[in-house]
């Protein structure tokens, strides 16, 4: 059973904004506008690592915004795919934040970023083999045990494949979800980026993806690295969602049914109005797919 289904049974009314309307990334430049205009939006997503201070603007504004909106917490620093043990102090800080914020979901990445005491500030890829699978599952068990709730694991954007991988990414993620009971965060832009970079077909990827485990979708923009050797797509989060990602999103919803969705933006931040427009566009696609499915059922 997916995380979302678990969540929906217990707290439908409180989560209805999250479930029914698309959300956007929460950034400090938007704090004032949000608390003045109270835009109609499903939820805001924060990066856990930006909200771990004891004081200052981040916890102060988050507490105010939390009074009016559902929040999702997205971790970027637990290094779940890492070879070294999880940093328990960091897990403790993240758990305290999750307890305070009571987010709709907590999500993290299938990636590594720390090796013992060194943090590299990038989501680095992992090989898809049995040893890595076992380790990632152990780390997810540890996180879920501490948080006392299922987490969502996000499919990565990658720029190379490991020679030693002997499973597909989808197989790898499906097995993790089954073994640990975690849900999956399907980043559709990452599907586009990774499939392009390994010359795969993103539609085939989505057709194989375990949609019943998907608790949230991320949509973001990417850029093109036009180096001499080979073109690569870069998961930059600094532009609008591209046309082909919107197409993949619609395809995903047709396979998965309606799923809570985030417009993720981290760089080159536009006015909040621009992000709200993208969120609204996502809502229109969601509504259209819901209508399609009603018609199919009626027939």
């Amino acid at each position, binding site marked *: 059973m997916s995380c979302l289904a678990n969540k929906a049974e217990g707290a439908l009314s409180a989560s209805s904004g999250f479930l029914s309307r698309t959300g956007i990334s929460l950034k400090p430049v938007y704090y004032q506008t949000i608390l003045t205009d109270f835009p109609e939006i499903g939820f805001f997503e924060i990066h856990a*690592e930006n909200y*771990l*201070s*004891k*004081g*200052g*603007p*981040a916890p*102060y504004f988050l507490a105010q915004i939390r009074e009016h909106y559902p929040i999702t917490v997205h971790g*970027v*620093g*637990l*290094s779940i795919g*890492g*070879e*070294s043990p999880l*940093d328990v102090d*960091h897990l403790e800080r993240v758990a305290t934040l999750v307890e305070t914020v009571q987010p709709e979901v907590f999500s993290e990445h299938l990636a*590594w*970023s*720390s*090796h013992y*005491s*060194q*943090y*590299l*500030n*990038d989501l*680095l890829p992992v*090989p898809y083999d049995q040893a890595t699978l076992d380790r990632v599952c152990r780390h997810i068990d540890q996180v879920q045990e501490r948080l006392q709730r299922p987490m969502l694991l996000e499919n990565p954007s990658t*720029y*190379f*494949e*490991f*020679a*030693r*991988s002997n499973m597909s990414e989808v197989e790898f993620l499906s097995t993790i979800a089954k073994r640990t009971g975690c849900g999956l965060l399907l980043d559709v832009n990452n599907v586009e980026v990774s499939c392009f*970079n390994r010359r795969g077909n993103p539609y085939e990827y989505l057709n194989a993806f375990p949609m019943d485990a998907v608790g949230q979708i991320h949509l973001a923009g990417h850029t093109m*690295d036009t*180096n001499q*050797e*080979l073109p*690569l797509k*870069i998961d930059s989060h600094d532009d609008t969602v591209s046309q082909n990602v919107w197409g993949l999103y619609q395809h995903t919803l047709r396979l998965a049914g309606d799923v809570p969705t985030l417009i993720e933006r981290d760089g080159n931040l536009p006015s909040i109005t621009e992000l709200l427009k993208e969120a609204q566009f996502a809502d229109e696609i969601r509504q259209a797919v819901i209508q399609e499915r009603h018609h199919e059922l009626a027939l």
Partner: protein
Amino acid sequence: MNSHFKSALFSQDSRFYNEIKAGSLAEKETRLNVYRNNVFVSLIEALSDIFPVTHSVVGDDFFRAMARAYIVEHPPSSPILREYGQHFSDFIRGFEAANSLPFLADLAALERNLLTLTHEREHDTLTREDVATVFAKVEDPSTLYLSLPPNTQLLASPFAIGSLYQAHQSDGKLRLDEVDIYGSEYLLLCKSFLYAQLHVIRFSEACFLKNLLQHKSLEDAIPDEADFDLGSMLAKLMKWQLISRISNQPPAIHQQEK
């Protein structure tokens, strides 16, 4: 494997290349370069966010080169990026190319200090009205003890880094050409509401505030300096919302009795 991957990000270490599935060595390089670029670009940006005035003083090319060298020597140890740059000031002190700017290391230390202060817990302070009420009730205010929040810091700098910092703020209160960087300065670092504040203060004011931090009574805290004006000092402390407690006993005794 992670440790070889890490080495390959920081150097042209080829031991990791066997791990990458690709048709040619050039393709392996190109694919790995995306990660190399991500790591360095994002960490240089992080340092620029933490040290914006230092960045502005040395210019973009110089800052990026200096930051890159720092990242190789001191990669972050925490996933909380605002904590990064702990050794940046010391690194600058030993960075030969920055020798012509002897104040740069102090400036960087000041910037990091302010950021850390912003992220610290807030302490309750008295309002202007609270302070006025207490003073009105007391016959001899000179016997009172004024407490400042425990994270209040005083700094004596051989360079005018406080003014240099202020001249780079968008409030336009001070122009860059008004700053004589080789003049010494006394600085007060404190927190007002959610953000750290920096005030350039007089020597006599620094003496007075140091005495308050050492829990001396108002009478004993007044420095033997001709330019010290208690009225204007107290007005500043109220404006900066920096008085956390007023009592007729020093804080230590007060706490013991509690």
